[in-house]
């Protein structure tokens, strides 16, 4: 749902959205192989211990580090959520952990306790004296930020913190910590000359709710907070560079083996803000930090391989995926829809319930259906969700046509089949279903055409298919790209229609076609 909202809000999709779909595909050697490899190659007597602080992003980064080490054959463990900055720092110095994710601003302020602005190199030199190494920035800056509702910001034309000077009436709600901090509200107001009078202290999570319902207009946030995307907020640009940089890095003991250090350093510059927000979102949604971290690795593998893909190759990939989505969901609709239709044809409240359910599903707008499925545990942002949604859409025509096709069989035929002494299964399989084959097939055909059309929406949740170019084209306002998806999708629908017309001739018994 979160990713969906961001897409609906018209933001360009991140590379990661698009590749989420491939989650199931192994992106490297098999785990068994890795294990063997680790056992043979690893000369480290003890595993590398990664620590993390007690919040989502730190957990995810810790998991990424663990896996980066594991993938290069180094045994590593992750001690999740050990506590705050000071505890982690002391653990690192004491040797209980070998590395942990940290932010440059925090290192300068809380660890080195230096009031002045330190350059990156100065921080590194100061740490080196303490026996601690630091990677280059991972690529994102998780600093304090001011956020607003996107709609409000657009309406008032506010893009930067300086722009707030023109709107003294805006109501502000800050966390108590931010109100008190040295780099918090008071110096910020001074630096920018902000006129707002209505400033209240409010809990971080409640603040988002207050912002959403319009009780306040501005609040503080961490710039990679998953809530920003989830609540469709904008980060106001810190145009006077008030907030210190909080670039994420890994700190590690200088005594750590060089290949372990190299594994951590390979993470440098690979995680931009958008990507980190996305991983945080995924981690908060699934509560599974390992899988969120795994996303990082899958995205990386694929970004490289698809960078310079030729158009025919892309088209083939989109079309194949599209057929995969539509075909698999149709198969499910048939396998489940026909039995449901058979049950529904008997009427009664069960039949009514089945037809009612299928009809209601059909009335849910496809976007809403996707949005409803994404938060469910098994689904999330995946091909599964797309197939499940398409399957549900494909259900009604098949269920309804099966039910009405069976009900339309003349009573004399029903009774003849019974009176002949055929077993119930034979009656159904050899008499009733063949007699209803025309409406059933036409129901399947309707589902197939609907599925081929609706499958373009699968791209919204990163499931790929011909919707991918359509969506990119819409975001980029590029008609050619839109048509690259729209034309093949339309042709595919026609092809499916034609294919089913041929299939009719094969599957509908001759006696019913004369």
């Amino acid at each position, binding site marked *: 749902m979160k990713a969906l909202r961001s897409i609906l809000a018209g933001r360009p999709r991140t590379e990661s959205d698009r590749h989420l779909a491939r989650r199931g595909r192994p992106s490297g050697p098999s785990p068994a192989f890795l294990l063997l490899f680790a056992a043979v190659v690893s000369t480290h007597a003890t595993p590398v211990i990664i620590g993390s602080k007690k919040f989502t992003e730190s957990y995810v980064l810790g998991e990424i580090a663990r896996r980066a080490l594991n993938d290069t054959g180094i045994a590593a463990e992750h001690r999740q959520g050990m506590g705050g900055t000071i505890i982690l720092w002391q653990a690192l110095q004491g040797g209980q952990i070998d590395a942990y994710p940290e932010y440059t601003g925090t290192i300068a302020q809380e660890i080195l306790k230096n009031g002045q602005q330190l350059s990156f190199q100065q921080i590194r030199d100061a740490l080196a004296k303490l026996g601690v190494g630091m990677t280059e920035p991972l690529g994102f800056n998780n600093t304090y930020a001011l956020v607003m509702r996107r709609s409000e910001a657009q309406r008032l034309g506010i893009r930067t913190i300086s722009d707030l000077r023109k709107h003294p009436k805006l109501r502000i709600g800050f966390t108590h910590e931010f109100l008190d901090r040295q780099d918090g509200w008071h110096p910020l107001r001074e630096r920018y000359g902000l006129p707002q009078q209505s400033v209240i202290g409010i809990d971080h999570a409640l603040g988002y709710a207050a912002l959403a319902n319009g009780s306040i207009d501005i609040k503080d946030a961490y710039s990679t907070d998953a809530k920003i995307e989830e609540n469709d907020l904008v980060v106001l640009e810190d145009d006077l560079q008030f907030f210190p940089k909080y670039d994420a890095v890994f700190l590690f003991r200088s005594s750590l083996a060089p290949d372990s250090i190299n594994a951590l350093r390979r993470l440098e510059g690979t995680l931009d803000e958008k990507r980190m927000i996305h991983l945080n979102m995924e981690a908060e949604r699934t509560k599974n930090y390992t899988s969120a971290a795994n996303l990082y690795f899958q995205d990386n593998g694929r970004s490289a391989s698809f960078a310079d893909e030729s158009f025919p190759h892309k088209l083939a990939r989109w079309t194949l995926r599209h057929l995969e989505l539509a075909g698999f969901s149709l198969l499910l609709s048939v396998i489940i829809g026909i039995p449901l239709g058979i049950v529904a044809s008997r009427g009664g409240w069960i039949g009514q319930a089945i037809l009612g359910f299928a009809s209601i599903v059909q009335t849910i707008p496809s976007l809403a259906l996707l949005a409803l499925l994404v938060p469910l545990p098994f689904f999330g942002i995946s091909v599964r969700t797309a197939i499940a949604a398409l399957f549900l859409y494909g259900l009604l025509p098949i269920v309804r046509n099966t039910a009405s096709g069976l009900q339309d069989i003349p009573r004399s035929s029903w*009774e003849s089949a019974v009176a002949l002494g055929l077993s119930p299964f*034979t009656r159904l399989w050899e008499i009733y279903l063949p007699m209803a084959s025309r409406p059933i097939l036409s129901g399947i055909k309707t589902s197939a055409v609907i599925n081929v059309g609706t499958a373009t929406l699968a791209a919204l949740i990163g499931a790929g298919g011909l919707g991918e170019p359509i969506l990119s084209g819409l975001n980029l306002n590029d008609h050619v790209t839109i048509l690259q998806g729209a034309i093949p999708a339309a042709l595919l629908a026609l092809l499916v229609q034609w294919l089913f017309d041929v299939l009719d001739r094969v599957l509908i018994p001759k006696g019913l076609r*004369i």
Partner: protein
Amino acid sequence: MSALVKLVDVSKRYADATALHSTNLSIERGKTTVLIGPSGSGKSTLFRLIIRLIEPDSGSIEFNGEPITPDTIVKLRRRIGYVIQEGGLFPHLTARANVLLMARHIGKSEEEMQGKLVELCGLTRFSANLLSRYPVELSGGQRQRVGLMRALMLSPELLLLDEPLGALDPLVRASLQKDLKEIFARLQQTVLFVTHDLAEAVYFGDEIVLMNDGRIVQKGSVTDLREKPADPFVSEFINAQRGVSLT
């Protein structure tokens, strides 16, 4: 002479009306019993009860001295042939497949089925060339003959016919009536025949069962019905039918 089918105190009620009041009836072996009566008189209900297309509310039905129950009916149906108006053929199967459907289902050998098919074609005077046609490619009379072959395929002890000739034009109807009567005689078939046409009832019926309003009004030969009517309805019915046949 013994009864092949015996109904004892059988009744059937639908939500809003009694379709069949408590009824007793015996269907004699080797004879043709005709059920006759106006629409809604309960003759179709009685007919459906015997082949268990509907369940009776009370009473029991015996076949060959054994009660018909939901457990025994599936096997029993194979000993009963069933023909309805238009033959009740399945449109997606050829004439041959329709006739052989049940024999195949219970795993009869191909030779046995072919032999029986040839015999039935002769009996019902149906051209074997037409066996590969679908019902829609056959005339009404031809369909009826196929329906009859299908019913006779397993040499049933009882043959049930529900207005089998109702939808046919008079010439075809006359020739089929003649053929049917010959077939019944040749096979010494026990037959239960439902019609609303008195002339047909008289033509076929060793025994005529006149029904009205969910009850059997009178049972006997047509002479009995005409000369010793059990109540005014019998006379009324016979006279009305005679009137129609005269015009």
